[in-house]
């Protein structure tokens, strides 16, 4: 079973921010180590790391016109912070992996979506 796992940062401290600077050294190291371990977990195919949501550009097409706006489609807090693809036996196995994503305990949330091959139907 293939899942796409979306990481929402929420209020998770992001590297470079004051909140991140306020974390103890060991804690910062632990977070990097946890993400590293996650990417080594069997079944996980990590997506490339995402830059900050404030650097995002949102594009819509209305009446044939391309409309471009600054920032993510949703608010900064609701923006996607990262994603990976996960091969797992079932939803419970996926939940156990999702619970190990550091953002889940630091003020963010993880969304598990089954992937679906619509075009084969």
């Amino acid at each position, binding site marked *: *079973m293939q899942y796409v796992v979306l990481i929402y940062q929420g209020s998770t401290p992001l590297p470079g921010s004051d909140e991140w600077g306020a974390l103890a050294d060991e804690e910062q190291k632990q977070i990097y180590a946890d993400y590293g371990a996650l990417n080594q977990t069997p079944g996980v195919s990590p997506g490339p790391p995402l830059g900050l949501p404030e650097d995002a550009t949102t594009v819509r097409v209305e009446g044939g016109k391309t409309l471009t706006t600054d920032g993510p489609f949703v608010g900064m807090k609701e923006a996607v912070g990262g994603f990976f693809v996960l091969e797992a*036996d*079932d*939803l*419970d*196995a996926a*939940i*156990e992996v999702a619970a190990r994503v550091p953002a889940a305990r630091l003020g963010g949330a993880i969304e*598990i979506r*089954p992937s*679906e091959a619509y075009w084969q139907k």
Partner: protein
Amino acid sequence: MAEVALDRVFHEEWGRVVASLIGFLGDFDLAEEAAQEAFAIAAVRWPRHGVPTNPRAWLMTTARNRATDRIRRDRAMAAKFGLLVTGDREEPMDTTTFPDERLELIFTCCHPSLAIEAQVALTLRTLGGLTTDEIARAFLVPEPTMAQRLVRAKRKIKAAAIPFRVPTSALWHDRLDAVLAVIYLVFNQGYSGRDELAAEAIWLGTALTELLPEDPEVRGLLAMMLLHDSRREERFRGGELVLLGEQDRSRWDHEEIAEGRKELARASALRGRGPYVLQAMIASLHADASCDWSQIAELYSELGRLTSSPVVELNRAIAIAEAEGPQAGLRIVDGLGLDDFRYLHSTRGELLRRLGRIPEARDAYRRARELTDDGAERRFLERRLTELAASPG
């Protein structure tokens, strides 16, 4: 066989047959349809030709054969399930070849990735065998809404691969809590007047004690439900709510009280002291002729530490009021931030009334009435207000 007895066999066996079929087929819809066909055949044949010696094996074999027939007819489905049917079709299979998979089923139905309403509906449908229409009526929801809820839940189970298995130890406690919460919710719905749901919840609770005999909370929940249920008949008189102190104790179901206490004793023997066991202990004390209110207050303190629920604190205040007087109870009630909770105001009204602070009592009862839409409770509050209008103050 009498119709009632047949109904009972159907009720007892439905969940087991459906669970086993889901385990075998891996598909809720197909399992349910096959079970339905088998039960329909039994309903026609058994009264005429007699009940088979092993009704369960008969139902399982028939349902399984129906399902495999259907899969064979549908080639695409056969490819999907990769099934081959062999063996003598007329020979009822030995029941030992059908493991009891109701536990797997209930954990799947109560999976927290489903909305709570869907968990409840799915549990009542697949395990309890209630029809969609029955569930819809019990929860005051239009039938198509309930049908849609069930369809969506089953689709999500398939799409998100919610497993059909008993959870691993890491997830065990959270998942068992979810199962107990669903059963309790069904019971509460039944306790507020829908009798058939209270009976269904007790039935589910009993089945769960058979499946998890060593878990004290499972037994605590059953004990609590039995003890509350023993007073169900007396809770309403002429469509009006009757408070515990004003109930006719001789009309309680004393057999059910004894049964509840037996379950509670088993839970205590298993060293259980979780939220459900504590609530059963409180319900058991309530059933005593001379109720020990200070012990009840202590149990509510313990329960409050486990749940940090202000509603538990409100119940503690009621017990304190009984043990130490209304002033002591009122002090706790006034410290609670439950302004939208009708029982807070009806409790305040009662305590103020006992203290002779009639105008304040009236205001509190009025606020409770504003927040209450239930008929029996409203009638109770109306009567209290009428009585207060006649009092001086």
